[in-house]
């Protein structure tokens, strides 16, 4: 099953919901391109929801590393949400679980970026 990515926005946070496999080829490239596109557009808070990701191979892991480091370079952050046990185990084996912020709850993941979300909320209410 090819990777499908659904994009949505929650305040200042961009949520990418991934469905399928993150493996070598177009799947990994699609994820890489989408995240880089967001970073180029100035987005600094990105959450990848991996609840429906059934498999990730080494290229997929490499893609996660690439988007993570690309985000770091732009003072942005990519956080991971709803990892399946299988994907979590992969990140544990590779010791990458300490590299990413990993969450089970969307609100906590969104809040983990810190104060600017509140600022967005405040400006929205002012308007």
């Amino acid at each position, binding site marked *: 099953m090819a990777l499908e990515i659904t994009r949505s926005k929650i305040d200042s946070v961009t949520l990418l919901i991934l469905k399928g496999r993150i493996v070598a080829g177009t799947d990994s490239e699609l994820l890489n391109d989408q995240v880089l596109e967001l970073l180029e557009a100035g987005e600094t808070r990105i959450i990848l929801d991996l609840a429906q990701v059934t498999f990730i*191979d*080494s290229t997929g892991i*490499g893609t996660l590393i690439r988007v993570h480091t690309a985000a770091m370079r732009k003072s942005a952050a990519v956080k991971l949400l709803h990892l399946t046990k299988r994907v979590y185990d992969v990140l544990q084996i590779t010791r990458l679980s300490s590299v990413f912020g990993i969450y089970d709850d969307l609100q906590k993941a969104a809040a983990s970026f810190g104060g600017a979300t509140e600022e967005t909320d405040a400006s929205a209410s002012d308007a």
Partner: protein
Amino acid sequence: MSAYLNEEPEGQLDHGRKELRWNIPIPVRVKGTASDGKEFDEESITADASPSGMCVLLTVPLLRGDRVTVIASEEGFESPATVTEVSPLGLNMNRVRVRFAASGKFSRASAARKYIYDYSSDNWIGYIFEGIYYNSKHEPFGKLEGNRVVAVDSGNTLFTIRGERFYDLRGHCLGHVI
């Protein structure tokens, strides 16, 4: 700041190593020719680093003795290196340990992101970037005020920094700022 990687706290070395390895995730690019003869250029992250070498997660097939080039852009570092160990992780991914050529000595002195490295756990517990202290989940947790890092929510001092080390409120050294 220049001596981060050269300082060796007592009791931190084991396995007969001559220098400390820091378990910190540094973005790096590794390029060269893989054991299958194909040229590669892969972005990845370190599992650990020391002044003379690194362990990097890579998907390319490499063998002990292979020559590569390691680039750590945040530190302005580039050096030829030799593969000294390859440990398969499964999933077609390897932990590749490299040793830099004699001319290369890795230092984080110029890096904007400074890791707070805890001696007791032998791991990083957070980092300071642009005056903000982030915890290990990359959450903004405190801010730097002079030589103190204070909690964002309570304003309480979390720890203090003197030189390249950080201390608890009683003045006990807890680890390095690297």
